[in-house]
């Protein structure tokens, strides 16, 4: 597309370079594709949230008085499918990753722009098939599709929903492939691996999981469909199969998938903590390699989902041990983020509030993960609301907080406009309070014994209902809190104050070009001569002693 490059008038950027629906639907610009993803993902997040609200309303009372059991089962299944496969997994990589990886490494685009566009179409196709499954009658297997319920007993649209997820998986694989090739081959001159922003490291680790893990879940879903259609007998014990085999295959992907959700958020938080305290990240290499360690160890812990599923006692012990091992790199990150704040210059802007909230919530989510890795305790809390609370702390408190923090942080770059800071801070606080009120009571009711995926619960357990009422109240606050950014971000796209190229005054490459950036990102290829997060101006060079750096070339 650079063949017939003509000088563009000043003020031309990726948003106004071309007009019309066709220019968007056929774009090869990673920034436009990121916006296509942003629209689609926000849509799915909205649908998934509506299911969550219906679930919380139903659980206000012990009886089933809002919907019937069969409907309730579809609601939590569809909440899970949409949130996991169509929101959380693509959320940060496909929007912020797509937009920022080329800009952070000083490239004009991803390595394969056409494949990037293809991955969006695959995502949309998978989404359409899944929405068809929901509209045609829904699916009630739980997002985990456990056999033999999903293969033999469910009368719902299992194959259609599975097909949607199967198709969507290829979008994930292509995105991961694109990121890996781009990060390897397209870094600007001087941008060595150890100068990469940690956001890029986190996405590199995420991409490894995407291309290694996603094919396994695709095969697993295919086997479920074959078993359902042709009864091939791979999971049915009467035909020599094993229903537990499904769980091994499913979690071999779906546990690492948790890291697909949270690693990019960790990358965002590393950026936010460093940039909003104007400090280089404490222990850069430890933070960078802990992402890779999480990606590798994450593949070795799937069996902790099977502690009570008739797995052998000794296999349980090995998986328990490995699950504790994967907790250490996460702990390293938390300590390093906290240490980065020490003697920093900390601002209270909205993205930083999300990042600080992330650290607190991720600490609770991670520590309660240790309860689940502890065999004897997991026996009691497995498949209860304790687990529900734990993974929402990781996925909402972790992935969603990272996503919202990143969206606010880069919003001036993406839209060229400033969001209203007061509303931003206010809604971040509302979301934080609402989130904790929703999910803290669920730890308690879980340890008391409330199983997950329950439409009704015993009316004689008064404290269970009290805790559920608190949780639903929190969910209402959380829901309102999430609506506020939806309104003001959309509003700011048209009415927000015009953003400067570098409104936060930061050293990252993505801030060294116009807001919004031109289609080719940089008018000349940048040459990198500094480490990541290097804030000290040249005159400070002597003062900082051992912190040596070269003078930037060409400035």
């Amino acid at each position, binding site marked *: 597309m650079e063949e017939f490059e003509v000088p563009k008038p000043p003020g031309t950027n990726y948003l106004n370079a071309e007009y019309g629906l066709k220019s968007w639907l056929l774009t090869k610009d990673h920034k436009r594709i990121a916006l296509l993803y942003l629209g689609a993902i926000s849509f799915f997040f909205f649908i998934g949230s509506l299911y969550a609200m219906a679930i919380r309303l139903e659980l206000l009372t012990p009886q089933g008085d809002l919907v019937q059991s069969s409907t309730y089962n579809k609601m939590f299944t569809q909440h899970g499918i949409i949130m996991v496969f169509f929101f959380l997994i693509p959320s940060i990589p496909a929007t912020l990753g797509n937009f920022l990886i080329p800009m952070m490494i000083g490239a004009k685009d991803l390595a394969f722009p056409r494949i990037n566009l293809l991955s969006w179409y695959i995502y949309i196709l998978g989404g359409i098939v899944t929405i068809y499954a929901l509209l045609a009658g829904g699916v009630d297997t739980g997002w985990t599709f456990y056999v033999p319920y999903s293969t033999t007993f469910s009368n719902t649209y299992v194959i259609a929903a599975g097909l949607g997820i199967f198709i969507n998986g290829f979008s994930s694989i292509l995105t991961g492939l694109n990121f890996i090739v781009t990060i390897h081959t397209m870094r600007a001159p001087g941008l060595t691996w150890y100068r990469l922003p940690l956001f890029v490291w986190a996405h590199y680790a995420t991409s490894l999981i995407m291309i290694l893990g996603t094919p396994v879940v695709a095969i697993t879903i295919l086997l479920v469909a074959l078993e359902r259609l042709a009864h091939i007998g791979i999971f049915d014990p009467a035909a020599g199969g094993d229903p537990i085999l499904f769980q091994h295959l499913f979690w071999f992907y779906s546990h690492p998938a948790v890291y697909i959700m949270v690693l990019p958020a960790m990358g965002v938080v590393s950026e936010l903590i460093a940039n909003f305290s104007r400090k280089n990240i404490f222990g850069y290499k430890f933070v960078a390699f802990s992402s890779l360690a999480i990606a590798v160890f994450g593949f070795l812990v799937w069996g902790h989902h099977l502690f009570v599923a008739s797995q052998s006692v000794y296999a349980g012990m090995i998986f328990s041990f490995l699950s504790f091992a994967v907790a250490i790199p996460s702990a390293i990150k938390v300590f390093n983020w906290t240490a980065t704040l020490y003697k920093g210059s900390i601002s209270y802007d909205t993205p930083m509030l999300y990042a600080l909230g992330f650290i607190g919530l991720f600490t609770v989510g991670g520590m309660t993960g240790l309860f689940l890795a502890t065999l004897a305790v*997991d026996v009691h809390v497995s498949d209860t609301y304790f687990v529900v609370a734990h993974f929402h702390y990781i996925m909402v408190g972790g992935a969603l907080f990272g996503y919202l923090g990143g969206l606010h942080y880069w919003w001036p770059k993406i839209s060229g406009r400033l969001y209203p800071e007061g509303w931003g801070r206010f809604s971040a606080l509302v979301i934080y309070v609402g989130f904790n009120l929703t999910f803290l009571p669920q730890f308690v009711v879980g340890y008391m*014994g409330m199983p997950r995926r329950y439409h009704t619960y015993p009316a004689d357990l008064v404290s269970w209902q009290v805790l559920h009422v608190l949780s639903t109240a929190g969910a209402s606050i959380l829901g309102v809190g999430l609506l506020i950014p939806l309104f003001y971000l959309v509003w700011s796209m048209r009415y927000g104050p015009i953003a400067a190229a570098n409104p936060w005054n930061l050293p990252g490459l993505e801030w060294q070009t116009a807001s919004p950036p031109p289609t080719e990102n940089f008018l000349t290829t940048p040459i990198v001569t500094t480490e990541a997060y290097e804030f000290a101006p040249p005159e400070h060079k002597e003062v900082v002693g051992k912190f040596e750096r070269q003078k930037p070339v060409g400035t």
Partner: protein
Amino acid sequence: MQSTLPLMPESASTLSGDVDALYFYLSGVTLFFTLLIGGAIIFFVIRYRRRNAFEIPRPIEGSTKLETFWSVIPLLIAMSFFFWGASVFYRQYRPPANALEVYVVGKQWMWKFQHPTGQREINELHVPVGRKVKLIMTTEDVIHDLFVPAFRIKTDVVPGKYTTEWFEATKPGRYHFFCAEYCGMNHSGMGGWVVVMEPTEFENWLSGNANQMSPAAAGQQMFESLGCASCHGANGEGGRGPALLGLAGGNVTLNNGQTVRADEAYIRESILNPQAKIVTGFGPIMPTFQGQVNEEQLLQVVAYIKSLSTARTETPTAKPPPAASAKPSATPASPGGR
């Protein structure tokens, strides 16, 4: 059933205290680290807030000593979780010998129990206090899970195999149990009560429901009607097929030289899939009984074969279990909450 502690489940088995102790330890460590991190963040954020728009703090490179410190300390703490958790888990999943064996079949959406003395129950399980009870469980359809919060036990019930869990209740009362593995439409309705009774009262309950055939006796009828006797002998003494007397609980040498333990799973497999493991010295001539017996009948046949090894297991007759007479209760206390 509310616990004496607020916001904790009733603690009513010999293991529930151990699980709670571990839970409190984990909660304490979690609280400590959450307050440590949260406190450090709040302190730093206030102490090092941006005071002027142009200040640039001195960079700090990091410290290998600190990194080692905060990698090793969490690892040590995590290992304490691991070893403590694994040791309690080992006891949770090692069924004790001489337990009262209750057969459990789950199906959408009910639980069927059968006592060794023949009494059948649906969605209610009566057990004596102070006696080890082992549940031998399977399912007729999808995966279920029998979860008794008050006992801190939970095990999936998986089609095609037997899983077990055990408990020893420490106080009489009625305790909720739930299905904890999603199993379809009425999943949340698939629960009931474990009724823990004083031994004398349990004895009365058993005799009040005693006119039912024991699983072993029912299994013997199945054994005869299915024609098993033609190869395994009228009393299991063996013939063209291996002897069944004294089989259960012992070791079996296979024709490939391997030795396997003849537990419930082995007996089950040998009935449904006889070719899987052939006893040394015998030919692969037994037909499968897959589809000819349902899960309950299969459990009865297994119970009958186990009854042929009287030396190793209790004789499953209509006699009251020995614990009932071994632990006489001074007063016939009524089960709590009833």
